[in-house]
């Protein structure tokens, strides 16, 4: 179905996630690159050697969750915008999620926006904690949102209503 709709199945998504324990320890990257394409900037960007693509740049990136610090450099470098960061260390009820968001208007910090799943369906409202848009991110702003833990595996996008 993924090839027909662009929506990965729940199983595909789960396979890319680290354990809950790892997420609760602190920020970590989740690389949703499901199909082999010739591309390796995530590997090149990682200063901690946590992402490996290898000599054949068509390989699917493999991430070492122990080495990953969740620094989000790869998130801004991925041409497919396929990377997000999850951090479960801040609260028992919520997780902090970082996603790329290349649309205007950017949300404001503290603003409540629509939280969307991988189909673009509104599943919950989320609070914007931070908007990071330095020059080094090259016009791929990164939005940090606070999300109810039960949507950890569903949340993937936001909509800012104007």
């Amino acid at each position, binding site marked *: 179905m*993924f*090839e*027909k*709709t*662009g*929506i*990965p199945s729940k199983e595909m998504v789960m396979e890319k996630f680290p354990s809950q324990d790892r997420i609760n320890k602190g920020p970590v990257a989740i690389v*949703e*690159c*499901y*199909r*082999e*394409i*010739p*591309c*390796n*900037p995530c590997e*090149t*960007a990682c200063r901690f050697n946590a992402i490996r693509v290898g*000599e*054949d*740049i*068509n390989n699917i990136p493999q991430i070492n969750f122990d080495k990953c610090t969740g620094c989000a450099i790869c998130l801004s*470098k*991925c*041409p*497919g*915008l*396929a990377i997000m960061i999850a951090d479960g260390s801040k609260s028992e009820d919520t997780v902090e999620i970082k996603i790329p968001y*290349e*649309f*205007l208007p950017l949300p404001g910090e503290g603003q409540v926006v629509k939280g*969307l*799943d*991988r*189909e*673009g*369906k509104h599943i919950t409202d989320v609070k914007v904690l931070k908007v990071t848009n330095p020059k080094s991110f*090259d*016009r*791929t702003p990164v939005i940090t949102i606070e999300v109810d833990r039960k949507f950890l595996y569903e949340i*993937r*996008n936001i*909509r800012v209503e104007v």
Partner: protein
Amino acid sequence: MKQAEIVVIGGGPAGLCAAMSAAKSGAGVLIIDRNKSLGGQLVKQTHMFFGSEKQYASTRGIDIPEILLKELAKYKDKVEIKTNSTAVGFYEDGVITVLEKEDKYYKVEPKAVVVATGAYEKFLSFPNNDLPGIYGAGAVQTLMNVHGVKPGNRVLMVGAGNIGLIVSYQLMQAGVKVAAILDAAPKIGGYLVHASKIRRMGVPILTSHTVKEAIGKDFLEKAVVCKVDEKFNPIPGTEITFDVDVMCISVGLTPLNELLAMRGCRMKYVPQLSGLVPVRDENYETTVENIFVAGDASGVEEASAAMVEGYLAGLCAAAKIGYKPDDFYERRKDYMNQLNNLRSGPAARHILAGLDQIRR
């Protein structure tokens, strides 16, 4: 008659890299491009490129011409650039005729040529496909990303290849609503990371669907689409009507290389490379000596491959006319390895199958 060592026809990604590569080897290069400025289609590509560092991966396409032109400027004593200039003929005696700004017409006689003329868009037949509001994807990108003009308010994208997916995303970035993306094929043709990022904006992707007709009096008002079976025949009763004022046709490209055919290069129809392409050797030299090809003109592929083909063709063209640098074999091997690497995955399987058919 103007004399030149190497003429590069087309100043897009392949042509710019070919010129740079040839000039780096010491050859004099004349770039001829019909547009006002160089860069070809790169000037419209606001998204980050795939590939690896050597092909400027993760850099936005719009920023690549500047990088390449800066590099090219290092060889400015060797390089002459003619913009607003169209190569209109390429004759058996090796002479190229050029029309500059529609009033100056002259001949050039080069020792070697790299044809990097790119590709043109395919179109789709359906009733009323000439209504205003029905565009090719290239035109939509030119309007939006070059001139800052919104093509309309609500778009139906026809074609889920990389261009259709990317242009849909760019339309949404410009504040245009994309009603749906459809494709007659049973599967999404473009990279699925692109598909996913559009899908999570809420845009449906309808595979096995085609356009039945366009409806409108003075301009497009509605588009009727329907499902197709495995043989691409419309299935009656499956029609869906979209209220849209723009239909964007993105059903693929065809190599633009009539100049090579005119010059007498052996051409072959290769579906996997999207049309008629020149037979060539591994150095990208065609069946006519000292005539090289690079980029989409040699078969439609990603811009990253076009750039590497340009480097390779420029290097080999310069070597053929006496500018063979000490590191020739090293550079050639590097470019060939890069191409192999870009093409080694499942996304490029059709390209390899196509290349097998045109190897000299």
